[in-house]
């Protein structure tokens, strides 16, 4: 029988949601201070108003009184699922009033894209956006990349008991250390370290290429965040191509791959257990998968006269491969080149890379390498069982933070999420086709949205059909939360509003 939300459940959900909304107001102070520093008074007023709006809404919700420290699994799922939508809505308010969006829905699309680290943007005249608005876009990336709940927990906003339920509802169920708060603090600390180091390195590269010091520092900070959280937003329309710097592209490739490696494996290496890093099922799946796909990518492009020269393959091709499999979405070729210069085979390869994505427990999206590895192990196990005598008990093991035996529960979880991802990729492609778009582009765009990959071919653009835009927003949201939280929330809400007799009969 499905369980309904009680009035008390709603109070608990509202209370915790209020805490997160207040936290989002604090985040808005960063673009506000940026605006003040650069004397951008109009954005300063906008972000102050938006922070006020968030503070008011959050404080009102916090009036809902609850017993402290009590947060059940169902309530946690609802808080997380709703937080991603409510915070995107709040984020879209200052963005919309910037005047850089054709419609309000476009601003919401960018809000969801920023928070889910999809990185697809349908902003108008990005090159002339204020520093404050840009800072806010990358703060959304940072917040969403690490996870709204992870960041909130690392600041100790919720108690330990509430934290455990919340943490596992955000598509992050791996713990670096047993304590949830310490795990989130570790994730935040490693991010601050990597982003700081990358900012300095990239700023130096930008200074050497002739950019003004303050601008170089800001751009370096922004692309460092975007690269490490595998987001994809950039401060310029031409994406990374704008900088025309091979060393910069190389640093970003390292940063993107680092961002797509699970924090758990990074922690193992941080403890000095380097062997665990190389034995891990994710590392091995990544090496085999990316090597195989690079081989096919080179073969398909080699057969075409337009993009087959070796320097282009090594610089542009390799960057696109890394940008796709880490689900970042940085581009070093234009959208037009993506659809007209690349062969359809290379186009498909990039879509497949985004579809699979990076490591579980990292900031990357997609199905995740660990699930693909586990499904492969399951196939091996099935074949072994078919060949083994009846009396034999087949045991298949894999390495992921220690040796683990493949269990039916692990396989079931991997298979379920795999099927949900693939179904959503297909469904999104059908929605695109139904709007009259080319099938290949519709498939590519659908994969880019669901996997939070963010490489786009032009379907997602200002003035796109509202129904398609709403579906893409749903895909980004569902893909980031890996479906289970979303489905649980939708079912709970449906059951709660259904007449009591019918719900009870199930």
């Amino acid at each position, binding site marked *: 029988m499905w369980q309904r939300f009680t009035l008390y459940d709603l109070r608990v959900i509202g209370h915790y949601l209020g805490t997160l909304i207040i936290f989002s107001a604090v985040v808005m102070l960063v673009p506000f201070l940026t605006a003040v520093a650069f004397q951008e008074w109009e954005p300063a007023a906008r972000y102050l108003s938006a922070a006020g709006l968030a503070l008011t809404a959050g404080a009102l919700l916090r009036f809902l009184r609850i017993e402290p420290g009590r947060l059940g699994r169902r309530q946690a799922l609802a808080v997380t699922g709703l937080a991603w939508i409510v915070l995107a809505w709040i984020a879209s308010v200052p963005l919309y009033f910037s005047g850089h969006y054709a419609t309000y829905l476009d601003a919401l699309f960018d809000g969801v894209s920023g928070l889910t680290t999809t990185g697809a943007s349908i902003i108008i005249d990005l090159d002339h956006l204020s520093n404050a608005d840009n800072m806010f876009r990358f703060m959304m990336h940072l917040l969403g990349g690490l996870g709204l709940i992870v960041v909130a927990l690392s600041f100790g906003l919720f108690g330990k008991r509430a934290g455990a339920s919340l943490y596992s509802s955000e598509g992050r169920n791996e713990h670096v250390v047993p304590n949830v708060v310490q795990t989130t603090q570790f994730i935040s600390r490693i991010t601050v370290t990597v982003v700081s180091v990358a900012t300095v390195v990239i700023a130096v590269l930008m200074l050497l290429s002739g950019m003004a010091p303050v601008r170089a520092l800001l751009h370096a900070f922004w692309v460092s965040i975007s690269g490490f959280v595998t987001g994809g937003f950039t401060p310029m329309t031409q994406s990374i191509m704008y900088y025309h710097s091979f060393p910069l592209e190389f640093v970003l490739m390292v940063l993107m791959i680092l961002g797509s490696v699970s924090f758990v494996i*990074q922690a193992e*290496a941080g403890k*000095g257990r*380097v062997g665990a*890093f190389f034995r891990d099922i994710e590392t091995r799946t990544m090496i085999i998968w990316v090597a195989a796909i690079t081989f096919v990518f080179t073969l398909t492009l*080699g057969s075409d006269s337009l993009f087959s020269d070796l320097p282009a393959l090594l610089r542009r091709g*390799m960057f696109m491969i890394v940008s796709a499999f880490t689900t970042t979405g940085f581009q070093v070729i234009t959208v037009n080149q993506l659809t007209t210069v690349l062969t359809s085979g290379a186009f498909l390869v990039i879509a497949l890379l985004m579809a699979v994505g990076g490591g579980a427990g990292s900031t990357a999206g997609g199905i995740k390498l660990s699930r693909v590895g586990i499904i492969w192990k399951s196939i091996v196990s099935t074949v072994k069982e078919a060949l083994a005598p009846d009396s034999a008990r087949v045991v298949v093991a894999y390495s992921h933070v220690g040796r683990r035996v493949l269990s039916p529960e692990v396989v079931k979880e991997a298979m379920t999420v795999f099927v949900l991802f693939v179904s959503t990729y297909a469904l999104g492609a059908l929605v695109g086709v139904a709007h009259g778009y080319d099938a290949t582009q519709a498939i590519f765009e659908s994969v880019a949205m669901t996997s939070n990959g963010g490489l786009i071919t032009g379907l997602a653009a200002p003035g796109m059909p509202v129904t398609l835009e709403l579906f893409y927003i749903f895909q980004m949201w569902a893909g980031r939360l890996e479906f289970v939280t979303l489905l649980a929330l939708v079912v709970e809400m449906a059951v709660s509003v259904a007449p009591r007799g019918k719900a009870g009969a199930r």
Partner: protein
Amino acid sequence: MRKFSKNKGSFLGLSLSGSATVLLSIVTFIVAMWVLITVTRVAIG
């Protein structure tokens, strides 16, 4: 968190040798991909 901060030769609680190995592995991975692309491209003419 205790274990991270007690490491000798650590930077912000992270083992320098472990972190350096991960970074070096990623750089090697990128270089290996370049070699693969070059070999494949040259092989197909």
